[in-house]
């Protein structure tokens, strides 16, 4: 443990004044296989697109092996869900990327593109094409920042230490040495099966 942590000074005086506002939210999609869809990975806060991509590579890029990453400023998303109001502002025709979530238990993933004069028009078109889904998003392609096709994102080292399945086999073997099968089955009932 560092000496600093062992000897944390007694707080004195007031906290420093707040600095500005919060960072801006960015949504992150990762492509798990070359030529496959981009699937929703999560979101993060950043001051600009460059910082968002840097954090995305470091965080979501190391969660799961992936070939490419997209980051999208949250306000650029127009969706059928309450979190993402869609802009009706009309302008020149732009290309919008469609994302769909098929059911509550699935995640959003990228689909076709649509050319439209506003996000609202693109969303209407996307919903008409495939109405039977949980959530639909549209994002102007120009608002999507992407890693290069040949960027190295996933580190070529063993990262099973940060996954539950990296421990599952050895843990089970160790348990089997001390517990009988019914007791072990009862104990494992509470586990999140989908995580393995």
């Amino acid at each position: 443990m560092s000496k600093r942590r062992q000897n944390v000074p007694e707080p004195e005086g007031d906290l420093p004044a707040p600095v500005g506002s919060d960072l801006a939210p960015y949504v992150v999609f990762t492509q798990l296989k070359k030529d496959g869809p981009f699937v929703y990975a999560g979101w993060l806060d950043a001051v600009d697109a460059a910082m968002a991509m840097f954090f995305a590579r470091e965080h979501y890029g190391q969660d799961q092996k992936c070939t490419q990453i997209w980051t999208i400023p949250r306000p650029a998303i127009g969706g059928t869900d309450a979190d993402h109001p869609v802009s009706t502002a009309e302008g020149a025709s732009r290309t919008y990327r469609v994302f769909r979530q098929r059911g509550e238990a699935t995640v959003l993933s990228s689909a076709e593109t649509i050319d439209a004069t506003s996000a609202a028009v693109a969303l209407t078109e996307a919903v008409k094409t495939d109405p039977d889904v949980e959530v639909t998003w549209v994002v102007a392609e120009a608002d999507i920042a992407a890693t290069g096709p040949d960027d190295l994102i996933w580190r070529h080292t063993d990262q099973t230490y940060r996954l539950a399945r990296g421990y599952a086999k050895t843990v089970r073997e160790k348990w089997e040495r001390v517990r009988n099968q019914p007791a072990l089955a009862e104990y494992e009932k509470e586990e999140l099966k989908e995580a393995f």
Partner: protein
Amino acid sequence: MSGSSNVGMHVDHDLHDDPEKLAEFESRVADGHLIEHDDWMPDAYRKGMLKMAEHHANSEIIGALPEGEWITRAPSLRRKLALTAKVQDEVGHGQMLYRVSQDLGKSRDDMLRDLITGKTKYHNVFNYPAPTWGDIAMIQWLIDGAAIMNQKTLADGAFGPYVRTMKRINMEEAFHFKSGEDMVLTLMSGTPRQKKMAQDAFDRWWYPSLMFFGPPDKPDAENLPPMKWRMKTVKNDELRQRFVDRFAPAALDLGFVINVVEKDADGLVVAKRPDEQLRQDETTGHYAFTEPDWEEFYRVIRGGGPCNRQRLALRRLSYEQGQWVRRAILQGQAGLPPAA
């Protein structure tokens, strides 16, 4: 890591709420619909959900502190990598939960400042010390195990943004728990010295684990707003019983003795005796156990725990030392970093 059952959640109906809107809201909740942040909701619900999500976020970033202390002292490279990844995950969970809270109307900076100044709380369990590597194993096995049990039920709640965040967090908690389980199994199949270290740590963490689920429920808990509005879906006592039913037999099979303990002001055990109440009821299958010391629970909440001062002082130091970074990225003015 942490669920938020033990947030002191007193949520009352506001008499000024529109009765028609309130009825529609309650009907949607009862029918299993998810409430989104821009839907109409009773003011007490918004405040209650903010309090719960903020408490949970605070717990994630404070919870990273005791484990972070052990990164440099982990016993192998693989354990060091795993612990580093876990601490990174916990802080990431804090970020996700602060985002949920921000959508309910409070800025992140206000939340961090309220945490440091003691206006808001974090989970009690992080006010206990982790003096050995055995404590890190117990935190990951018992506390993360309790967190998964709790957060699985919170993921059945009604507030959409919180529910979705819980589901993602639970996936990562599975790694934390599995890693902890592996460490406990390794220690308990090791040398007598390793087993003693694990037993001593178990003694320190068993009762904080039972307290993790919050104080005993009020008799009418199911009819009070937190459960009626599905901010939480299972009572504290029921979760505590599920935890004991799962972990007590596993601990006994591993060779642990489940002790009732007395601790000193530093949170270290000064006296212990086997829990004489601990036995399985053959009819119900449930394990009886000695209740935690609830006076200690409330004393720690009020700031009288072994590590309350230390945790907040370190959090404050980080905030103060990060000021120049915030200034640099938000205002483009780096200034000079403070002397370390």
